[in-house]
């Protein structure tokens, strides 16, 4: 039925059709044999699709199963059940030799870089090409291209011990790109780096995604990584995906507790401690309702508090707030206190203005 659509081919209109997923996990579960004979479930019923050319981030706490998940994609781990389809091939069903071949089109970078200490930057980048059986001259040209791409041409003869963390990860990225993969897997690639270096590595990944059209699947426990680079996000907890979708959607309207807890670490979402310590779940006489207001997209710059005072005569007390950018779009958060008696009217007013609201509790 879908066959004729494929012939539309390269017309511009076709590009508007959502891209086919290049990586697809279908009902994937993974259990490990436990130490006491009890099997340990690392992943259960995972469904995940990574559209071609996108950057999808999987965020989760340590032990949530994200390392296992990313290792399923290049067959470093085999699923206990379910399918892992990469570029049309079922990775889990491939025989060893075919799997090795398939891995050349799936690059991977690591938290601790995993570079050979005995090889220079250039020779580390050359290694996947040697393994794939490329000729010497071909390897040399390709390595030069890659060094230039990651901005390390002047460091080609340096050993990893002579490079900074950020430079090592650049070598790691160049090595992962050596065999011209279609997918890049990033396993906590910036977790060992300082914020500034993290930023530059993420910029590099975003540039590679844009210029080479490379699909990136990354796992992280850092909100900042997702916010800066990912377009789609999946939140993983206890071996299952609890929330998934467009980064802006998920982060501005988090539905799951875990997503909220990740967001809580972000600036503007956390309550000031003097408020947090006095927060009660029940209203008492004369208490104030603490309301979080989320300003998304078109409403991000509305002077809504001024209107609240003018139209309803309700004076809101600003407790904390920030304006952020998530996936390139502005998003504001404001936490305000209003007299408990006016709370219902305030919420009503805010909702009418198309803002997200959440009652966090009450302070006496």
């Amino acid at each position: 039925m879908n066959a004729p659509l494929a012939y539309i081919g390269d017309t511009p209109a076709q590009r508007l059709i959502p891209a086919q997923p290049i990586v697809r996990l279908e009902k994937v579960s993974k259990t490990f044999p436990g130490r006491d004979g009890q099997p340990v479930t690392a992943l259960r019923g995972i469904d995940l699709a990574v559209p071609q050319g996108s950057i999808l981030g999987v965020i989760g706490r340590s032990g949530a199963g994200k390392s296992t998940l990313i290792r399923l994609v290049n067959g470093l781990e085999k699923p206990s059940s379910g399918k892992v389809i990469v570029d049309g091939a079922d990775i889990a069903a491939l025989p060893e030799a075919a799997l090795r071949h398939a891995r050349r089109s799936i690059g991977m970078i690591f938290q601790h870089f995993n570079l050979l200490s005995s090889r220079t930057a250039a020779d580390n980048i050359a290694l996947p090409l040697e393994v794939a059986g490329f000729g010497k001259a071909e390897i040399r040209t390709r390595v030069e291209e890659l060094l230039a791409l990651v901005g390390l041409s002047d460091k080609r003869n340096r050993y990893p011990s002579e490079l900074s963390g950020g430079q090592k990860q650049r070598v790691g990225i160049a090595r992962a790109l050596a065999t011209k993969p279609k997918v890049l897997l990033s396993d906590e690639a910036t977790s060992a780096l300082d914020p500034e270096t993290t930023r530059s590595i993420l910029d590099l990944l975003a540039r590679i995604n844009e210029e080479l059209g490379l699909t990136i699947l990354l796992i992280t426990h850092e909100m900042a990584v997702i916010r800066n680079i990912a377009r789609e996000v999946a939140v993983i907890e206890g071996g299952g995906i609890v929330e998934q979708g467009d980064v802006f959607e998920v982060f501005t309207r988090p539905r799951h507790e875990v997503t909220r807890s990740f967001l809580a670490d972000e600036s503007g979402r956390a309550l000031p401690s003097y408020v947090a310590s006095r927060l009660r779940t029940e209203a008492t006489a004369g208490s104030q309702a603490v309301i979080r207001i989320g300003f998304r997209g078109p409403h991000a710059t509305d002077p809504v508090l001024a209107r609240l005072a003018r139209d309803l005569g309700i004076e809101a007390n600003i407790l904390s707030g920030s304006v952020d950018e998530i996936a390139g779009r502005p998003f504001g958060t404001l936490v305000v206190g209003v007299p408990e008696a006016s709370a219902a009217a305030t919420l009503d007013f805010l909702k009418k203005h198309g803002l997200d609201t959440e009652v966090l509790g009450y302070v006496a």
Partner: protein
Amino acid sequence: MSPEMIRLIAASTGETLYMVAVSALIATILGLPLGVFLATSAKGELFAAPWVNRVLGLIVNATRSTPFIILVVAIIPFTRLIAGTSIGTNAAIVPLTIAATPFIARLIEGAIREVDQGLIEAARAFGASPLQIVLKVLIPEALPGIVLGLTLAIVSLLGFSAMVGAVGGGGLGDLGIRYGYQRFMPEMMLAVVVVLIVLVQAVQSIGDRLARRLNKRIRHA
């Protein structure tokens, strides 16, 4: 010291070097693959063969726990089979090799196991076969450790070689016992000890220097 003594010491030094060099060479050729296999064949590893790994481990341990002088005597029939004779320098190479092989295998196993597991994972991720991982990742990364292990093995072989005088193997140890001890020539004993000390020092410093040069993990000033 008489010219005769110097000639004897020179000849014995030559015999010792010959025995140690040949046995170290053969033991390395045998011990390297054995060590690599021991390091990569436990459950869940590259060449997972847990039973073979366990049996080989037992054989290696058994050989290593046999006192060298007993090994020399115990394997005389085997020595005769290989070397055609059970006495002399060439015959001595057989027990020296048999004693050194499991020792070297264990040292190489240790050096290979020191290699960061993350490197194996990275190599698997870019499509390297197990053999490519051994040749292009594990051995190059373990090389400084392997060189230090071989240095230790050669120094131990110098010590072992002194015992093969028992089967007419010749060498410095034999010279020291026959002249220095049995003929009451303390100056000969002293000379033998001095030559051995010099040899051990030389081997150790060459090994250390080579290992240091191969080790790129440390930033060189």
